[in-house]
């Protein structure tokens, strides 16, 4: 679903590494040399299984890593370097230019304040020239935008009076209140039923169409990515191992892990019990115990001994705007 995306790069992450100092055990790279970019108006899906580092990536972009994490590399947002930026500058960005939609809507909303008050607060933190009634009418507009019926009365409800899907909508309303340039949505629909997920994704779509915000969608669901993202980055054990437009990644899959992942999914449109699912042997190593060489090689059916188990693969060009971190991908001519 291509929105009004332009070629202007909004966010550029280069060689980002996150290093953890552990009190016990060995220090390790939770994220290693990760590069990403998002153009204005574009949706980038980041997909990976639990422990692949996808949520940590969003925490790094937001500047919200735990204290024992050491970050290196570069995160440029609207031309401004975020790594090493002053906390006050980051605070100014967060919530205004850069917004996050949390996964758990129940804990992300304060139970003792009305939904309207919390939306108003999200606005007034960055713009305190608005009167109380202006804030309220903005909150009503936002609730309407995210598809909550009767927003004039709903605005005075408390979070517990909302259903799960409505709370998630309210959170979206809060995060888009200041028309951010980039919305980071970390598993925004994981806790929801499919029919509600469809509603929420529809809301995100409409907001993107209206505001031309970019979206960084973090999920474990390749189906959501296929329907929603323009480009996709596949993460494995702290690395982006494949990145490109959704069509190229889904149809001209370059990395064996991505291929395995796609093959292991039961599909809604596949006939009953047509054939066994592909099973990737073993399980994803935690970044603390990443194997030598390519971190996927112990599970890879085509790994080459002496190469994949010793050398960390570099990024190869698998096609136009499509890269993969695999020794077995042949570089394509850039066009």
């Amino acid at each position, binding site marked *: 679903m291509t929105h009004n995306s332009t070629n202007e790069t909004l966010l550029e992450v280069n060689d980002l590494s996150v290093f*953890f*100092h*552990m*009190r*016990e*055990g060995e220090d*390790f790279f*939770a994220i290693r040399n990760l590069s990403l970019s998002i153009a204005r108006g574009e949706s980038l899906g980041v997909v990976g299984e*639990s*422990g*692949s*580092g*996808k*949520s*940590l990536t969003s*925490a790094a972009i937001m500047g919200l890593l*735990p*204290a*024992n*994490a*050491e970050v290196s590399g570069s995160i440029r947002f609207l031309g401004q370097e975020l790594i090493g930026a002053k906390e006050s500058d980051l605070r100014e960005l967060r919530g205004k230019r850069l917004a996050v939609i949390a996964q758990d809507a129940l804990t992300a909303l304060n139970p003792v304040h009305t939904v309207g008050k919390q939306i108003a607060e999200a606005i007034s933190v960055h713009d305190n020239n608005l009167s109380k009634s202006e804030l309220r009418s903005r909150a009503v507009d936002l609730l309407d935008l995210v598809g909550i019926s009767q927003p004039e009365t709903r605005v005075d409800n408390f979070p517990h009076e909302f259903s799960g899907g409505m709370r998630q909508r309210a959170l979206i309303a809060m995060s888009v209140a200041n028309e951010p340039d980039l919305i980071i949505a970390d598993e925004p629909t994981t806790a929801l039923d499919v029919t509600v997920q469809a509603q929420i994704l529809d809301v995100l779509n409409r907001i993107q169409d209206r505001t031309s915000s970019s979206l960084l969608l973090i999920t474990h669901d390749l189906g959501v990515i296929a329907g929603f993202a323009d480009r996709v980055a596949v993460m494995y054990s702290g690395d982006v191992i494949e990145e490109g437009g959704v069509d190229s990644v889904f149809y001209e899959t370059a990395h064996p892990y991505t291929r395995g992942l796609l093959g292991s999914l039961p599909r809604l449109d596949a006939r009953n019990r047509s054939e066994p699912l592909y099973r990737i042997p073993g399980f994803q190593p*935690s*970044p*603390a115990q990443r194997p030598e060489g390519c971190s996927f090689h112990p599970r890879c059916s085509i790994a080459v001994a002496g190469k994949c188990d010793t050398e960390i693969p570099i990024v190869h060009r698998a096609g136009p705007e499509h890269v993969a971190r695999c020794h077995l991908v042949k570089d394509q001519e850039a066009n």
Partner: protein
Amino acid sequence: MAEVTAVAKLPSNGRSKFLQRFIRHRLALLGGLTLLFLFIACFGAPIFAPFPKNQQDLLLGPVPPSFEHLLGTDDLGRDYLTEILYAGQVSLLLALSVALVSTAIGVLVGVLAGYKGGWVDNLFMRITDLFLVVPAIALLALALQGLGRSPFSIVLVLSLIGWTYIARVVRGQVLSLREREFIEAARVIGANDRQIIWKHVLPNLGGVIAVNVALAVASAIIIESTLSFLGFGVQPPQTSWGNMLSQASGLIGTSKVYLLYFPGLFILIAVLAVNFVGDGLRDALDPRSGSGSMQGRKRK
């Protein structure tokens, strides 16, 4: 941050990890060693005590601490260190018995109330409420007045009062354990209540129980001392730290005030040591404590 916890290394072996955590807790280790030392000294008193028990030396009378009598002697010229070690046998044994008996009652009641729920739970919890509102010391004094003041009745009465705390804690734990899926899983494979309690509930209460025994020992030492000090506890000629304290209480302001200090010091040391052990046990039995914690470290 789920990603971060997933990364923390898992313990390779539950038991050795438990020991590691306990030993790392320096105060607990210190407390444990102190306690061990006290036990050996008191119960090995026939071997370690510098003089035989009750050996009077009326000619000597009370003397202050000296090289020969490390803690001095009392009015009857008995070596005070010897007396304290023998008295410690009574105090420690009483405390340990009270802790074990009250924990046993408390665990039984707590497990039944928490697991069965309904009227059983209501009945037991109202009883424990009752104990909470009655002033314990007065009740103890009354009960001991009636039952006599033998060590046996002291253990009985102290246990009958002490079980309520652990019963509440255990009940709370069982209430949450009961809802856990592995208990349901046991039911699905055909285990009955008794089998579930023995195999799945009690082992998961191990930590709570161990910690409680330690803390109950500490509080029993103090309560026994208080009672003995007030004259309701261990009766002379039998001695305990508490009634030694009581007998010496008239000496405040005299030169023999050291007779008051030493039993008090032993009580203090024993209680502190047991408390440290309790803290250590609690931390060591909590798998989330210690290793791999992401908190509390600032970036260099």
